[in-house]
């Protein structure tokens, strides 16, 4: 026979939050920022194949920090959701806000009802056009959703990185400058992150339907060096 002890809901939530935060804090941060003609996402990533940033749809990208298997499953679900929504209705009807809400609901459910909360924090970025706005939706491990107009930082060291980036950011500027600021904010005063340990994804209009591009090491170091 097992014994069930009473645990106050406050304590339960607190324990679960601490658990999730610890998992997320183990990973490096990701910074996403709007620049003059697009959105750039910058992650510290030593792996060239296990990505943290991904294309979801024509104008939507995904970024995740924390446990890789957990956020990668969310990434896949996002691509499936977007592709089937566009297939059923029209490509113009796929909106990042709906996807961000589904993510928020799922993370919220897992936090309060799942066997354990997901140790992830995710971002859904959308490049605006005449149908949709440029938005950065940030969703925390317990399902809190926020939309940022200019930049967002995910991960354990988010507050410090955000403060450093806020000091550098005044208004959307060129991709080169934005990337340099992002990398310096991620690294902080003591560290400089080499280009081959950066993963950079960009949403920008180039005349094609799909706007997501992954920047190669060469392009990244060129932009950082300039």
């Amino acid at each position, binding site marked *: 026979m097992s014994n069930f002890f009473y645990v106050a809901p406050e304590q339960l939530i607190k324990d679960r939050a601490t658990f999730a935060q610890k998992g997320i804090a183990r990973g490096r941060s990701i910074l996403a920022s709007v620049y003059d003609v697009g959105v750039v996402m910058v992650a510290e990533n030593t792996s060239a194949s296990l990505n943290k940033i*991904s294309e979801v749809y024509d104008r939507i990208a995904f970024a995740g920090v924390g446990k890789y298997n957990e956020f990668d499953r*969310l990434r896949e679900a996002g691509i*499936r959701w977007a592709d089937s929504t566009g*297939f059923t209705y029209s490509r113009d009807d796929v909106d990042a806000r709906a996807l961000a809400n*589904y993510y928020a609901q799922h993370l919220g459910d897992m936090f309060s009802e799942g066997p354990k909360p997901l140790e992830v924090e995710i971002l859904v970025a959308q490049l605006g056009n005449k149908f949709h706005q440029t938005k950065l939706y940030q969703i925390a491990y317990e399902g809190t959703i926020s939309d940022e107009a200019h930049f967002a930082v995910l991960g354990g060291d988010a507050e410090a990185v955000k403060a450093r980036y806020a000091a550098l950011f005044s208004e959307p500027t060129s991709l080169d400058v934005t990337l340099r600021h992002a990398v310096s904010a991620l690294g902080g005063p003591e560290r400089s992150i080499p280009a081959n340990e950066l993963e950079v994804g960009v949403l920008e209009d180039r005349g094609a339907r799909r706007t997501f591009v992954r920047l190669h090491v060469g392009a990244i170091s060129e932009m950082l060096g300039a």
Partner: protein
Amino acid sequence: MGLPLFSATQDPGPSFYQFSQAAGVAFPVDVAGAGEGLSAHATTVIAVRFVGGVVMVGDRQATGSYIASRDVRKIEAADQYTAIAISGTAARGMEFIRMAQLSFEHYEKMTNSTLSLEGKANYLSPIIQRNNLTSPLIVIPLLAGWDSSHQMGRIFEYDGAGGAYERHDFATIGSGSPFAESALRLGFRADLDMEAALELGALALYEAGDNDPSTGGPDFVRGLFPMMVVIDAGGYREITNDEVGERFRAISERRTSTGGVPGGTLR
């Protein structure tokens, strides 16, 4: 639809078709009368290989018991380096193209890598089989593209049951095939360049349009001409309607000057 999450053992993987079946997104099948009318696919689409790629030519007429439309697109880019053409039931054909286009992109996004051309050809097989063997709404596609790993143009044709066969010279689909094939068999050479392949393809389509009532030839009255497409190392591109028009006008003038007789050499 909610967030489509799967456990690792139930996950449909990067295939959009598998996923759409699991999630009930598309393709209700099992219709009465399956397998009937296997030969009814009024159309002519031609694919011809040349040294640096593939040329495709397709007519634009939709035929029921009368001409339903004169400006249908039967060839579409499936992705940057691949084209799909359809013959058969228009509704199913269009859905098939949409499914193929989305599937190749879906795979790319899911895995961060591109499907090989052969992978694309094989991927379509069970979709065609499932459609054609469970419904009377037959679709026979034709797949052509630039294979960047082998640096050559490749053509895959299908039988009614979804079998994929690679063709090293040319392939045709639709009711105008016998007429187009005859011209292609006489005119095809292994060392065709792009210009020669375009000319041969246009001539073969002209023959099909001339003989097959369900294939639309050049329409000089409305200025509507067959679609002509090139896929090479530079990717998929369509020849402009004006350029296609000039090519067909030249063929037509040659024929007019001889009173409709093609002549001893291919004209």
